């Protein structure tokens, strides 16, 4: 029930950077003391619910990052855990102070700049696609042409698309697919500078790697059914075949980025000729509530696992005992689907009857629409809410998730 969890003063004191109710809830149930560092708007809620809280504005990293580190140090905090892309560099700065290791600050900058990140990976002997930084629209057109001429396309052949991503945003935010020079005109100027990447035809998937003492303690592969829409955990047998290769690649990342501890969320492509390409890596919990999926499938709480990885006081025995065996210990496959309205004018939220009756469907977190008109999506935007599924068969899970793309949740 909801009895207080005993907090063990011999274990680490954790600062969570950013406000995530799921994370706070998980750490509140964990045996470690904690404090949530979040903007002022969270104060009332934190006070009302007895959540340990420190107000902080994360707008821009500045000289005050040192001040936050010192404040937390005075409080006796051992380590800071970033919950969002925007707080990754703050965690680096704060941990540089708390753990007396200035290198962590620079490491955090690598995670925050997708261009630098790729270059660093390349230097570490990791295979990446072609990429370039762009400052203006002209750079985008030039890159599109160069990539397609390298592919020996003739005039009139359909172009291979290229991808445009913001340097410092999480997941699909600011991600555009560019096929023609006309697509380039639609890019607002304020999205520059940004990163350009060639398109890789292949199977994309995400990895959640819990790292301690430079070793992978637990690795999960999240199978993307369709990027930006659906994902499930653990992956199908077909994808799990790649596990040992994936582990090798993540170990390369650990070396290249000099990661002693923490949590890595890289994304990879496997192309039809069996080559693995590195896409990008994040140092914070993945989107699409993948942590909830891991908990649903494996029964352990991934936020607690993350805190354990960061905690300098965690013992090897505790880490050893915390994780189940990958894949074999999973009770089933947990999947989630991000809903976007398919119609331009909508009136109501209505779960498709077919989904309602599907035995894999668990529940949804969708809200009724507040407006009737749906704004046109230009980039991969934010979904309107998640729908959760759980079942035994990975193949059926994949089918159910991809079927959802054809159904109307908002009518």
């Amino acid at each position: 029930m909801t009895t207080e969890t005993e907090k063990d003063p011999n274990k680490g004191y954790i600062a969570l950077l950013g406000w995530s109710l799921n994370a706070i809830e998980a750490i509140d149930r964990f045996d470690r003391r904690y404090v949530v560092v979040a903007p002022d708007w969270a104060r009332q809620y934190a006070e009302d619910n007895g959540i340990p809280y420190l107000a902080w504005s994360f707008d821009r990293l500045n000289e005050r990052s040192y001040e936050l580190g010192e404040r937390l140090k005075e409080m006796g905090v051992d380590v800071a855990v970033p919950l969002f892309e925007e707080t990754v560099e703050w965690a680096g700065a704060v941990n540089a102070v708390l753990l007396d290791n200035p290198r962590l600050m620079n490491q955090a900058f690598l995670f925050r700049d997708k261009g630098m990140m790729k270059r660093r990976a390349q230097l570490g002997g990791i295979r990446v696609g072609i990429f370039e930084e762009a400052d203006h629209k002209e750079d985008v057109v030039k890159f599109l042409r160069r990539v397609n001429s390298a592919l020996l396309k003739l005039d009139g052949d359909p172009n291979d698309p290229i991808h445009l991503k913001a340097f410092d945003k999480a997941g699909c935010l600011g991600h555009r697919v560019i096929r023609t020079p006309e697509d380039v005109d639609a890019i607002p100027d304020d999205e520059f500078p940004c990163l350009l990447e060639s398109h890789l035809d292949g199977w994309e998937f995400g990895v959640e790697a819990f790292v301690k003492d430079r070793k992978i303690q637990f690795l999960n592969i999240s199978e993307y059914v369709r990027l930006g829409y659906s994902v499930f955990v653990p992956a199908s047998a077909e994808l799990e075949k790649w596990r040992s290769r994936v582990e090798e690649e993540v170990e390369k990342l650990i070396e290249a980025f000099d990661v002693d501890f923490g949590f890595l969320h890289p994304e990879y492509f496997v192309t039809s000729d069996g080559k693995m390409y590195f896409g990008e890596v994040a140092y914070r919990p993945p989107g699409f509530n993948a942590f909830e999926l891991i908990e649903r499938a494996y029964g352990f709480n991934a936020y607690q696992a993350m805190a354990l990885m960061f905690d300098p006081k965690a013992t090897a025995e505790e880490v050893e005992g915390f994780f189940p065996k990958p894949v074999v210990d999973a009770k089933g496959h947990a999947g989630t689907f991000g809903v976007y309205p398919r119609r331009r004018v909508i009136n109501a939220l209505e779960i498709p009857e077919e989904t309602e009756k599907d035995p894999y469907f668990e529940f949804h977190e969708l809200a009724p629409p507040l407006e009737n008109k749906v704004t046109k999506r230009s980039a991969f935007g934010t979904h309107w809410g998640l729908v959760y599924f759980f079942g035994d068969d990975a193949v059926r899970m994949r089918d159910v998730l991809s079927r959802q793309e054809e159904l109307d949740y908002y009518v």
Partner: protein
Amino acid sequence: MTSVDGRPAEAGATTGADGSARLDALLDKLDHAIARLEDARPFAKRQRAGGPLDLARRAMAEPGGVEAVYDRIRRLEGAGVFHDTDWANPGILHASIAAQTLRLADPATATLEALSQLRMLAVSRGVYFHPGLSSEQAANFLAQTIGLNLDLLLSGPDEAQRSRPGQIGDVLRHLFAFIVGHVDPAEVVDQLIAEIWRLLAQRPIVVEEIKSMISQIAAWRANDETTGGAATHGRGGWGADRLISAVFAPTAGCREDPGLEVYGARLAAMDDAALAQEAAGLARSMHDTGLASAYHAVFLRAALDRAPTDFIGPALGLSATGMDAYRCYRDLVRALIERAVHPETAQAIYGLALMLERGVLYQPSVGPGLWRQIGLKLAPAPAERLRTRYGTARAPEDWLLAGVLSVLGQPLGVGQGNNPTCQAARALSMWAFADPDYLLQIVAWTARDDRLVMAFEGAPISSDEAAAGLAAQAPADVDPVSIVAAPHLDRIYAEMGRRCAERGGDAHRWVNPEMHGWWVGRGCALAVDVATGRLDRYEDFVRRFYAVYHPLHNGGQPVIHPQPAGIAMTDAAARYVGWHAIAIYRVALDQEGVMRVYFYNPNNDSGQDWGDGVVVSTEGKGERFGESSLPIADFAARLYLFHYDPLEVGRPDSAPADEVAAIEAAARRSWAADR
């Protein structure tokens, strides 16, 4: 069975086996979701409750699902599915709102309500022991909800219900089928009718809910006659005729419920003898039931223009006392009817009749006060609250005037509704009873100025400056006077409490006399020590109560003014529920020679079982309309605070020792168990 590509089989082809496989899968997921909610911290409950709720809804849409969810209802509540919602505290739920929610709400809210119904069933059957709800309360609630949903219960959901999103139509069909499996509809109807009569015996001012239950019964009987069901075979429906006729056909002139216009035309064609018959029929029906029909309003308005014979007195069913008051204040009464009595506001007729009978018009300030009320213009805010509650067919001024008549005629009919404002309801009721011109003044201030200033120990408190009261929102489900005045009283009451917060001891000691009137005794006896919550010189407390209030121990002195008092509320299992405000009106022998305390309880339904054999009576034991009563020893065993005049303390040693000891034992068996 759902095929691999995710497409469901044809709906009609769903077999029992496939359905039950699907139900099993849903229940697996439901159990997991409940476990996850159980683990959640309080601040995350609301967010996590969505899963169990959605799964419960889908399970209930499957055959057999309602029963499976019923088996889990205790776990669902324990895990927190009601956490932070209106359903968290079942004691405040309202059957009429529940019925509306089931019928109209979005799937998630309707599911919460369905779960709440299952909880009521579990508690009423004694399989779920609930701290905030007695099994009697639950059974009454269930009977009322069923009463308001008889059509769903007996004929299943109609097309509009079936086409609701989220399979809610199926959920409701299964839910009511399950409930009917545990309760007999004819029995429910009988229980409901008994319930209505029991409520009417307390003569509440707000009767919309009762009237709507009566219309449901009328529809059920009409339906039942055509289908040859229970009602015509002698089972179910006893006592329904009088209720139905009181609302829809009180006299020979409207026996077939012809509509108000037709009735008006018939009246115009009637001679004096026929009109006298109508007047007597209307009056009898109203005084029998406490319900006034819309036809009654049509008659009274017609009677205003009728000369030379005046049928107003007979139509109000006045006694010699009432007739005398009418004759003395004929212009005023006719003006009141002109403004306040319409088909929509017909219930005010009953208040008008009783107000004349009480003779309050003979108090010199009441008549002029009512003339002020007739001409009173409302401030925008109270006018808006009245419109929200009663619609725009009549001006808010008319509704308020009608409400004033009801309150002056039925002071003990004021109820707190579904709001934590028992103090405000008690104050309004007490003033209507003992100080009617003051009540009129309070109404004028709050309605016209939307502001009320009361003094607390000489320092003014203004309701528009005081911080929030006990109620988060202005009460909406109450009578017009309460709608206008209660929010102000609530805030002032809370502010008075705040000003005593530092003093130590129970704030009511100072607040009650300042708030309610000069006659509230400045002495205040408390059964418990506020700091520790433990019993404090309890024997002295009981002896003092007897010496002040018991006529055989206080020199035969009846209670002069109603006195506020505090009760330790207990449920039917005699477990402590909370402190509650009531007022002592009389202490007297009943017809069987038992000394009883007659008191006012601002709860809408005062007939309550307080456990350990203490059952509050509302009729048949010498109660006047609206009074509750208990033998004085039973009453004393639940009392924790009363007021008295320190100069009139009587002889505390006069109470018999064995009775005092029995009272202490009864208190310790119930609310004072660990005090």
